């Protein structure tokens, strides 16, 4: 009977041993504070160790220092994070990308003069990569004024620190709801990928997919999506 005791003891030890939770780093600029978002995501994904970053720089530094199993961010950020493969794409109104516009006060910006204008953006990638990314989208060298939080874009317009801001149409609507400035948008025919999830190791896929699928409408709305598509 002794071997049965040993077997039971072994099984109990295995079951009782702490299972290392998958690490998920999140960097998605929203109006919700990182701490609040971390609480919301952790509540629906108790078996995932969630860290939400409010600043791109902190996110990049931590990904480099202690690479997580998965990251959740806007597609341009994921595209520049080596060793991560996208496994889920956020979807809004049936699309995995969203339209971006230039927003200015009183008068629409002349796109022919865009190279001489100063444009405000939320910093996703750091000074040089962000400049390269936006210039590539516009097919022109753009002078950028970067801010760390998306709520800081409105003051840039209020104080005339920039000629316009480069934002998604969704964010433009949010800013318009907050402000009584005479805001005008200029269509660009530029689309940027929505929030997506990417993995460093395939082993974490099931848990991360299950986690994101549990996001409720409020959390998805904060992230700018209405559903998730598994790739």
């Amino acid at each position, binding site marked *: 009977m002794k071997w049965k005791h040993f077997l039971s003891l072994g099984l109990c030890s295995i079951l009782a041993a702490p299972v290392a939770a998958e690490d998920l780093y999140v960097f998605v600029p929203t109006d919700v*504070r990182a701490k*609040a978002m971390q609480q919301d995501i952790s509540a629906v994904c108790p078996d995932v160790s969630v860290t939400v970053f409010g600043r791109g720089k902190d996110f990049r530094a931590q990904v480099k220092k202690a690479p997580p199993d998965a990251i959740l961010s806007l597609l341009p950020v994921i595209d520049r994070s080596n060793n991560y493969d996208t496994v889920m794409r956020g979807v809004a109104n049936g699309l995995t990308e969203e339209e971006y516009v230039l927003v200015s006060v009183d008068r629409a910006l002349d796109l022919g003069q865009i190279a001489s204008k100063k444009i405000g953006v939320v*910093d996703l990638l750091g*000074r040089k990569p962000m400049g390269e990314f936006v210039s590539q989208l516009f097919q022109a060298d753009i002078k950028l004024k970067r801010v*760390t939080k998306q709520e*800081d874009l409105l*003051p840039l317009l*209020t104080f005339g620190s920039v000629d316009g801001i480069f934002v998604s149409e969704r964010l433009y609507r949010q800013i318009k709801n*907050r402000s*009584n400035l005479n805001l005008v948008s200029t269509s660009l025919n530029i689309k940027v990928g929505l929030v997506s999830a990417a993995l460093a190791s395939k082993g974490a896929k099931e848990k991360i997919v299950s986690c994101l699928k549990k996001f409720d409408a409020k959390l998805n709305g904060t992230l700018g999506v209405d559903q998730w598509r598994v790739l």
Partner: protein
Amino acid sequence: MASSVNTQKDYKRFWAAFVPNMSKLRQLLFIVLSLLVLPNIALAQDDDDKPTALIFTAQGQAFNEVVAGITGDLEEELSFETYMVGKSSKVSEIEEQMKKLKPKVVILVENVSINLYTKYQKKNPDAEFPPAIALAALFVDRYLAKLKNATGIRYEIPAVTSIVNMRGLLSKEVKKVGVVHRKWTAGMVAENARYCAREGIELISYELPNKDSSMDKKLTKGLKTLIDKDVDALWILNDNSLLNPQMFRSSWLPVVGKADLPVIVGVRPFLNTKWNFGSFAIVPDHYALGVQAASIIGELMDDDWEIGDRDIEQPVSVKKVVNISVLDSKDVKYRKDKLSQMDEVVQ
């Protein structure tokens, strides 16, 4: 393959030319060591080539955050040197650092740094000064008027920033906001009123003299006048002459404490629940202030270190603290779903 052989031969010829008198083993050792050392020399050379940015800063947690924001994402492009200054620091220290480091740009954090650097410029009237950026200092405009080749970011949070942030949380409309101020800040208040007007907010001001033996009575009268004008909120300036403990007890608390109005303050301690006074504290985000300065440095780099006719900037980023106990006790309705947008919620 041919090219590979040729390359190997080329290496041998190359090293033989440099080390003709060495044995083969020594040559190999020399090559290995050279390969290990050369990249480091190259890196050191790269580091030396970076322009120097010299930061003069006062000590303190807030200023450390400012410096972290400045250096954060320019570290790869600039070599940062930070020199701490205090009230006992001398102009000669500034002079020594400037001579030693020959910075491409100078960053002045807090008023002490700006004062010392202003004295340094005055002491060297014929010198050419690199561009300087002043920030995290009260009333920076006054000091920048005395500095050559300098720009900066204001420390005071504009009314429009504070009010728009508060408005987003409140359930009721905010159309009229009152402010009591001394005469010397009239220009700043007028500028704030213009920004507010564009947001559909009327900033109603009540001006007090700069000095008066019965300032407390005048302040009480000013506050009562604003409340009688049915303002939707009060915006309180950080003016030590009006916000000292004596004035707080004699004027602010008796009038504002009883008024059922949201009150915006510029420093966190005024949100203390037991006073039933401040409901919103909109304060500088020091790290983001540093990032804003870094953005100016980046623009200067792109403009070949020319300041040109650059304006002094307003701070764009703030931290938002709300005391919902005070709001509840004053029966001011707010949107609970927006509390997650606050940096801190005091209950």
